[in-house]
Structure formats: structure tokens, C-alpha cells
């Protein structure tokens, strides 16, 4: 599904990444443990997380994550947003909890990082 459809499914706010809204995403991971993300097949996935630190963005850069969703309306500090903007990583803020955000994306046919539903 397109990134724009993910934003819609989550009633979310796109913080940055206007130019990437047509990007196609098929897999989704949810974690607050960066090593789990780094250990998984996380290229071009959407990553749901409750963390808003610079390390989330660096993890996304290193692992090739396609977009980051902050759950529970979280908004990262400006330097985190600037870093993601610089690196071309779309950032999304979802008003829903981790559980509900995941459920909504699962209902839209996204698979886990391992391709399973």
C-alpha cells in the first residue's frame, strides 16, 4: 500500500515526507528495541515505535527503513525531525496506541517484517 494510504488508515499526521507519499510499502514492524529492527528484514518497511530519539532515525537510516510512525500522538524533538528530513525518511505521528495502530495496518493487508500475516 502507498504511504499516503498508511497515513489515512491511521488518521495520522505526516510530519515530513510529502515527496514520498507515493512510496509503496508492504511490510510493517513494531518495536521499541532498535536491535530487533536491525536484526530483521526491515528494508523499505514502516516502523511503528513509541521512541522518539535520534537513535530511532539512525536505526532507520542504517537499516533502510521506509518510514517511521510514532504512536500515541508522539512528536519527536526538532533535531530528530531535522535529521530525518535531511536523510529523506518520512515521519508520521499516529494518534492511536501501538496496539490499535498495528491493528489498523494489519487490517489493510500489511505483513510483518518476515512477510507473514
Amino acid at each position: 500500500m502507498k504511504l499516503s494510504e498508511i497515513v489515512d488508515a491511521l488518521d495520522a499526521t505526516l510530519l515530513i515526507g510529502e515527496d514520498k507519499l507515493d512510496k509503496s510499502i508492504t511490510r510493517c514492524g513494531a518495536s521499541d528495541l532498535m536491535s530487533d529492527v536491525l536484526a530483521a528484514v526491515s528494508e523499505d518497511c514502516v516502523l511503528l515505535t513509541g521512541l522518539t530519539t535520534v537513535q530511532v532515525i539512525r536505526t532507520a537510516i542504517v537499516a533502510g527503513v521506509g518510514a517511521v510512525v510514532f504512536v500515541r500522538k508522539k512528536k519527536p524533538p526538532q533535531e530528530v525531525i531535522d535529521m530525518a528530513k535531511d536523510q529523506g525518511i518520512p515521519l508520521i505521528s499516529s494518534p492511536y496506541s501501538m496496539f490499535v495502530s498495528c491493528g489498523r495496518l494489519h487490517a489493510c493487508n500489511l505483513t510483518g517484517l518476515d512477510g507473514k500475516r
Partner: protein
Amino acid sequence: MLATLPGLTENDNLPLINARPARITAPSENFKHMSQLKKSFHIKSRDFIRAGEASINIQNLLKSMDFDPSLIRRVAICGYESEMNVVMHGGDGTLSIEVDSDRLILEITDDGPGIEDIDLAMQAGYSTANDDHREMGFGAGMGLPNMKKNSDRIQVDSKKDDGTLVRMIFFIPEKGETD
């Protein structure tokens, strides 16, 4: 492609060689003579704001040299995990990347407290990280196993109170060879 190197074993076999004392940071003669490029970055212990910058620099350097994207990803992941380890658990250190004709060598050293039991540290899930580390998204005990998985060879040298060295080798795939 060299099948075996002194001091290094296949990842599938025993990955750890402790034959060399810790604190030896100079590459052996084997690495020296075929070195084409080497870049080093200083890593500061407990500097969580900058942790990861060196690995992203290395990622960009390798991209500019047109290496295979999946190879670059593996190197960047190993660099980042190792950098986080030095920042979380180690002392001040150095991360370096060396580009040779058939391989990339990633090496990280630090002068911190060292690892008492390397076999235990290599086990998935083993971690001495504290709550602050976990709040930042680290401390799953997955870093070293992840570095082992993503590199073609790994060597960990460490002793309690005597620093840590981790050297990883990545063979550059032949053109057309996929992984």
C-alpha cells in the same frame, strides 16, 4: 578469495579467537599490504547524541564507492551495533573501515572495562544494559549476535579491565553474485 586467515574462523564454526592479547589494535601484516583505503572515526563513550554518526559516514562512503547495497547495509548494521556497544558499555574508542580489493574490514576498539565472558556476551539475549539504555531502545542483547550474523568473519578480543576489539570481515561479492 582467501579461505582462511590467521586468527579468523568461519562464522559457522567457532567465531571467537582469543589468541591475541587485547589492546593490539594494529592490523596484522596480512591486512596491511593489500589495504587500499582506511578511514577511522573516534567514538566517545556515553555520547548518545552522536552515537551512530560514524557508521552513517561509513555507509555514505561505501555508497559513494558504489558497493552492493546489501553489502553496505550489512556493514552499516555491524558498525552501528558496535558503535552503540562502545557508547553503552565501553570506553573511548575508534571505529575504522578498510577497503581492500576483495573485502571490507570493519574494526572497533575501546579502552573500557572489557568483556569478562565473551561466549556469554555472544549469546542472543545476554545483556548487562541498564534501564537508561533500554529506554533508548537498546539492551536486547542482540547486538553481538547481529554482528556475527551480518559479517562473514568476526573476531572478538577482550579481557576484563583491558578493553575490547571486534574485527569483522565482509567479502565483496563478485559481479553478478547475489547473497
